[in-house]
């Protein structure tokens, strides 16, 4: 049962998954999600934090509509309800780069753009991502870090209204990662974007997000929320270590 429901002007990302169980090829049944429910307000930046294998990617896949075999429901924020075929307003950075191996970096990025943006100037984006000299390479010719950056370029270039990111900065060196985090914030704040990012890095979560959703071990459910109300330009090293301390107080034993 997929039922549509008229939506108002400001719609949160609302997730209400009762259960998601996989059945492996060998017959093992694995419950990945159970009673997982949370909300992200439209225009907010939220992080999903949880142990490896708890069900974060599964959650994103459900929200992206790639997995329909679950019980429960969800609702995407505004920007999704545009009719099929119009501007793509959802973007995702998958946990693995998932670039088309038979297309160059530039082609991979441009193909993901709606027709109207296909010819847009991408020089700035490629420069910031350190991909300027790599536009004509095929994915197999990239290092993993470069491939991840190409996947980020693809997501950022689409100017999305809803953005899902699955550990986008893993296997990047700290300096590059830092630069890309700033780029992400720029893209996010340039227009009203609702973002949900999976990360294992608490510092990253505290620096970027309005709300951190902490997940428990598999089957994933919400352990608790941690709201960071502070505007991002106030989050200096001192504030960050305070935030980190209060996070650890609230969630001892996490991260």
């Amino acid at each position, binding site marked *: *049962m*997929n*039922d*549509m*429901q008229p*939506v108002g002007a400001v*719609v949160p990302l609302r997730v209400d*998954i009762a259960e*998601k169980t996989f059945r492996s*090829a060998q017959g093992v049944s694995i419950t990945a999600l159970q009673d997982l429910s949370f909300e992200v307000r439209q225009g907010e930046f939220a992080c999903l934090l949880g142990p490896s294998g708890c069900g974060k990617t599964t959650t994103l896949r*459900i929200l*992206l*509509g*790639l997995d*329909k*075999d*679950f*019980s*429960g*429901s*969800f*609702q*995407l*924020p*505004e*920007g*999704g*309800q*545009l009719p*099929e075929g119009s501007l793509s*307003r*959802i973007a995702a950075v998958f946990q693995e780069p998932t670039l088309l191996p038979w297309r160059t970096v530039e082609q991979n990025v441009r193909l993901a753009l709606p027709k109207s943006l296909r010819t847009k100037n991408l020089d700035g984006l490629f420069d910031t991502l350190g991909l300027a000299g790599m536009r004509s390479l095929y994915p197999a010719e990239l290092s993993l870090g470069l491939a991840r950056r190409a996947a980020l370029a693809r997501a950022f270039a689409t100017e999305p209204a*809803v953005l899902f990111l699955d550990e986008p900065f893993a296997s990047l060196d700290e300096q590059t990662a830092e630069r890309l985090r700033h780029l992400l914030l720029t893209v996010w704040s340039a227009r009203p974007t609702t973002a949900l990012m999976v990360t294992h890095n608490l510092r990253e979560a505290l620096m970027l997000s309005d709300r951190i959703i902490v997940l428990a071990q598999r089957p994933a459910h919400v352990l608790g929320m941690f709201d960071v109300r502070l505007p991002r330009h106030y989050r200096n090293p001192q504030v960050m270590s305070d935030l980190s301390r209060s996070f650890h107080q609230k969630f001892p034993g996490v991260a």
Partner: protein
Amino acid sequence: MSAPDTGDRTPGAVADGQSSFATVLTPALTVAVSLLGLCLLWGFAANAWPSRAFPGPGQVWQVLLAEAASGDLFYHLGATLGRVAAAYVIAMVVGSVIGVALGSYRSADRFFSPWVILFLNIPALVVIVLAYIWFGLNEAAAIGAVAVNKIPNVVVTMREGARALDPSYAEMAAVYRFGLLDRIRHVLLPQLQPYLAAASRSGIALIWKIVLVVELLGRSNGVGFQIYLYFQLFDVAAILAYTLAFVAVMLVIELLLVQPVERHATRWRRRPA
């Protein structure tokens, strides 16, 4: 035309999980319904365009029963199946080895690719006649000729398979010093499986068709022998009876052997065959 499991999302709307699958027919029932449908279609067509050249299923069934009762059917079918099986094994083994070798070694491929094109395009007739003339009118010549006809097709398919191999698995195997047998069994064959499946299925069919020609040109039994006799008499019902007897054997093999094996071999895929 694209893969189906990437259905529409329902963004900006409430989506509810648990996609409702309609009652799924069991495989056996599906096959039964499928064959029944085919028979009905055939019966209908035969009624609509009545012609000596297009008998209905009932007529063919009569002939089939008669030929089966006389024992002819099983004798000729047995002879043909034996030839098909022998030629198949030879062609698949030789063709796969050559194909994988050519797909793996660029320079060998460059040298031999004109030969492959040549052998691929030599008419069955020529090979069969030469084989009979050189090696005599015997079973070995017949089976050899069929295998030679089919080998280039296997080579071409397996060569594509070898070219499409993912080198990272071979590299992993090299680092962990997999033995030759392990490499073949655990690294090579699983990657080549779809190509093997394609080469096998269309292979059996091609081999059977060439066996028909081989039997026409120099055997004294077999389905091909019978089919051509009945062609001289323009007895299409008998031709179809023999054809369908062979197809039935292939269907049984497909459903009871090939498909289960295939499902087992591809169960690791997110959507197994």
